């Protein structure tokens, strides 16, 4: 069992999905999916612990040694992302029953869980694998199931959103495939470690540059980095609430992970970031994303869509961290990857609880929700404060490391921009606070009385919200893991 620990977090949901398809009853399918996600999460925790103790864990698929077989390499970085993805998958399954029951028709529910498990398997696979082509395969698994998940949204506009996402996502995946094809052509291998060894010899060729460009653009599409973010707001807004929680917390994070992996492990930093001067590109796009995304979020009449634009902005921070181009910057980026999942998981989960009762996430429907759903609103506020980066929350740790990293490169303007961005965040978070607590509820709104939230959802929401505070006051897990990961990624090229 322990020998196979590295593969279990991917294998469990991957096998669980077809097994789930045989269950025709929604409740049974839900229980099964819950069991799978809990097991997956348990394995991920064990895996991270094992990585801390033993260093890199290598697993050869089917017993075939590396250049021929597919190899799974678990280091600190992907162990952390695996933990994050499986944890959010578990949270969504455990807390999402009421919301799924409300938004997904009875007949489609078992298949919904199948698609969800497939998506989870895809994301976990991208993270765990050490094989470039395998990344593409899992990327397609997760993407295809995501399109299906988005399309299950109760609103017919979900179909349009899913279609947009499909077109953009397919372009992205194709780009990645082309890039991987090019480097295979150059080096004759798909194993990441092998690639890293052989690429420097051929690194100056035009093919290598083209390959890297294709991969970066493809991944930035999945990451929704400005200006490739167009699919994200629609998909997040129209998807069922629980799908939004899961996607917001994990999908872009996995894309960022893959981007880091390709830029720092497969290609190496002095080639990928420095020679192509991607530094400036990432910082510029990141800054535009932070300001553009936040400004749109401030004026958006629908909170769910506003938070989707906020995700675009937050991706900008991660890009800035990468663009700083030092171990400290990379560490900040990885820390924010982790913390942003917590924040967005919290606010979208709270919003899902509100939508469950109020039927809409438009601001006029949210008036007075602070009085009718005090606990849920308080959790939203905690998540929001974390987004702003108030000290004592996880978001503060992200900001802290990002500013320290920028100061380390003496980029004072960037420091100012990063902090000014969090003021914009404060504006759109405070708009929600004023609507929820100060505005009187409309006469026919359910918010006139007390509204009850299902216990399971509330429990998960509370855990998520409090984790924002916990990781704001004891940030050793993300900080040290990210620090170790960043150091090992940068050290490859002394």
């Amino acid at each position, binding site marked *: 069992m322990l020998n196979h620990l590295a593969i279990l977090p991917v294998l469990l949901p991957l096998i669980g999905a077809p097994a789930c398809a045989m269950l025709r009853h929604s409740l049974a399918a839900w229980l099964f999916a819950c069991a799978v996600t809990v097991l997956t999460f348990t394995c991920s925790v064990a895996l991270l612990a094992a990585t801390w103790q033993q260093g890199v864990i290598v697993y050869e698929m089917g017993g075939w040694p590396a250049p021929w077989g597919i190899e799974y390499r678990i280091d600190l970085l992907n162990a952390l992302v695996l933990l994050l993805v499986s944890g959010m998958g578990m949270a969504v399954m455990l807390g999402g029953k009421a919301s799924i029951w409300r938004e997904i028709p009875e007949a489609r529910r078992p298949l919904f869980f199948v698609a969800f498990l497939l998506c989870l398997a895809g994301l976990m696979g991208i993270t765990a694998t050490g094989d470039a082509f395998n990344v593409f395969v899992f990327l397609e698994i997760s993407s295809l199931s995501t399109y299906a998940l988005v399309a299950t949204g109760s609103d017919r506009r979900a179909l349009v959103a899913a279609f947009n996402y499909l077109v953009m996502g397919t372009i992205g995946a194709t780009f990645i495939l082309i890039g991987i094809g090019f480097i295979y052509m150059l080096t004759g291998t798909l194993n990441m470690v092998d690639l890293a060894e052989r690429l420097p010899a051929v690194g100056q060729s035009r093919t290598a540059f083209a390959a890297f460009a294709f991969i970066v653009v493809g991944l930035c599409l999945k990451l929704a980095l400005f200006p490739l973010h167009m699919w994200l707001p629609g998909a997040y807004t129209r998807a069922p609430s629980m799908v939004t929680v899961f996607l917001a917390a994990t999908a872009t994070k996995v894309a960022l992970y893959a981007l880091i992996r390709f830029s720092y492990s497969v290609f190496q930093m002095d080639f990928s970031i420095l020679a192509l001067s991607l530094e400036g590109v990432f910082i510029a796009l990141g800054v535009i994303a932070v300001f553009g995304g936040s400004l749109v979020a401030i004026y958006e009449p629908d909170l769910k869509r506003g938070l989707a634009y906020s995700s675009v902005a937050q991706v900008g921070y991660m890009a800035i961290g990468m663009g700083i181009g030092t171990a400290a910057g990379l560490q900040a980026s990885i820390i924010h990857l982790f913390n942003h999942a917590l924040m967005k998981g919290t606010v979208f989960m709270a919003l899902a609880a509100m939508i469950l009762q109020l039927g809409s996430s438009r601001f006029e429907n949210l008036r007075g929700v602070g009085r009718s759903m005090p606990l849920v609103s308080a959790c939203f506020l905690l998540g929001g404060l974390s987004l702003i980066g*108030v*000290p*004592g929350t996880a978001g503060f*740790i992200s900001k802290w490391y990002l*500013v320290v990293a920028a100061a380390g490169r003496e980029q004072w303007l960037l420091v*100012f921009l990063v902090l000014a961005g969090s003021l914009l965040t404060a504006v759109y978070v405070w708009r929600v606070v004023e609507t929820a607590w100060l505005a009187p509820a409309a006469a026919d709104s359910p918010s006139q009385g007390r509204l009850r939230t299902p216990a399971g959802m509330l429990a998960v929401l509370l855990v998520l919200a409090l984790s924002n505070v916990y990781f704001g*006051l004891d940030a050793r897990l993300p900080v040290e893991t990210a620090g170790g990961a960043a150091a090992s990624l940068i050290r490859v090229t002394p």
Partner: protein
Amino acid sequence: MSAGALLFCALGIAPLAMLGILLLRKRPNPREAVSMLAAAVLLGVNCAIFRRLEAGEILRWESAEIVPGLSLELAVEPLGALFSLIASFLWLVTVVYAVGYMRGHGEDNQTRFYTFFALSIGCVMGVAFAGNLFTLFLFYEVLSLSTWPLVVHAGTDKARAGGRVYLGILLSTSIVFFLPAIIFTWWSAGTLSFTPGGVFPADADPIMLAALLAMFVFGVGKAAMMPFHRWLPAAMVAPTPVSALLHAVAVVKAGVFSVLKIGVYIFGIDTLADVQSREVLLYLAGFTLLAASIVAMQQDNLKARLAYSTVSQLAYVTLGVLLAVPDGVTGSGMHIAMHAFGKITLFFCAGAILVAAHKTEVSELRGLGRQMPFTMAAFLLASLSIVGLPPTGGSWSKWFLMLGTLEAGALALTAALVLSSLLNIVYLTMIPVRAFWRFDGAAEQAAPREIREAPLPCLLAIGVTTTGCLLLFLFPEPLYTLLTRIPLGGG
């Protein structure tokens, strides 16, 4: 009790009080009893901490590391002990006052009011006992957020607009200036702990120090240095007890207290004296204290006038720090105490006038001395304390601040202090004088004859704080002794 436990008590009482207040939300009398009990216990705890400090004991507590090298730290030093004593004593008085005011004025949502009031005081305790800049910043920010519900208490559009200005300025300054200043300090000095004599190495880049000082002074928006003072008048939409305790004592004093601590324990006054931007900021403080006085003269709304007067008085404290001489620091520390008692009395009086006579404008107050003699007499004494005249405590702090300006050789600032005091007489002391002796030639008999004062709890509170002003004049000794114990490093 161990040092850590005592500090935890000081910080933990407020959350416990919040819990009690929320549980008793249906029963007003026990609910207010909880507030009073909490305030009394907190005062007791702070007295105990003060005694331990006097006995020479070192009280500190440190959490596990949050991120490598950074942890929550609590430590007691003379300034913090002084600030915590003032805040908790005045909390007790204000709760008494608030019971009379909130009921007399028929305010809604009183449970929410008392809950966030307790939370704010809890944060103030955190600021007072913070052992490093990070801890101070944490409580500073939470204090901004937890006072917002109090500012927008009325829920009207005006309150909401005031709340936006309030939070907008306080958050922007703290995020754009204060936070990066903290991070740069950490980055260059490697520590954020408050250390006697300062944390910067002797060869620190002078340009960076200059920039950092400016960022700290502007970043601590609660110190209301111009041009970032607009939040304080905006906060006056809050109910009067909030204006009295939070926006004359707790919140604004948390601001100047932070500046004082940064000056003494992060820079150290010797380093501070050599920072290039100090002089510019010093004169800006001088400008703020004059300009705010001039603006205050033009305000007809009583609370707005008091708010601008507070802006002016806060600049005294900042100025005292920036003088970077021992008497300046002593004067600043004293002024925190003296102004607290004086200004809270003035706000209490303003609230009493609102409750009893429903008047908010200064021009309506003529002749009111006949109707509310007690309130107006208290107003007179408190305004003398703000001006800095005997027999009130304010004279001592002004004395030391003037000494400080002379010691630093800044005669222009001495003149500014004198001028501002004269202006204070015009716009504060003249109010009660006109209330007692009508100079407008209006008919004597038109004046109301019968006495109609505010509810008894309000009067009680006013009496206590006014007595405080007088006692501080007669017995400034303990305060002075406490402040001379501030470790000034090389000095």
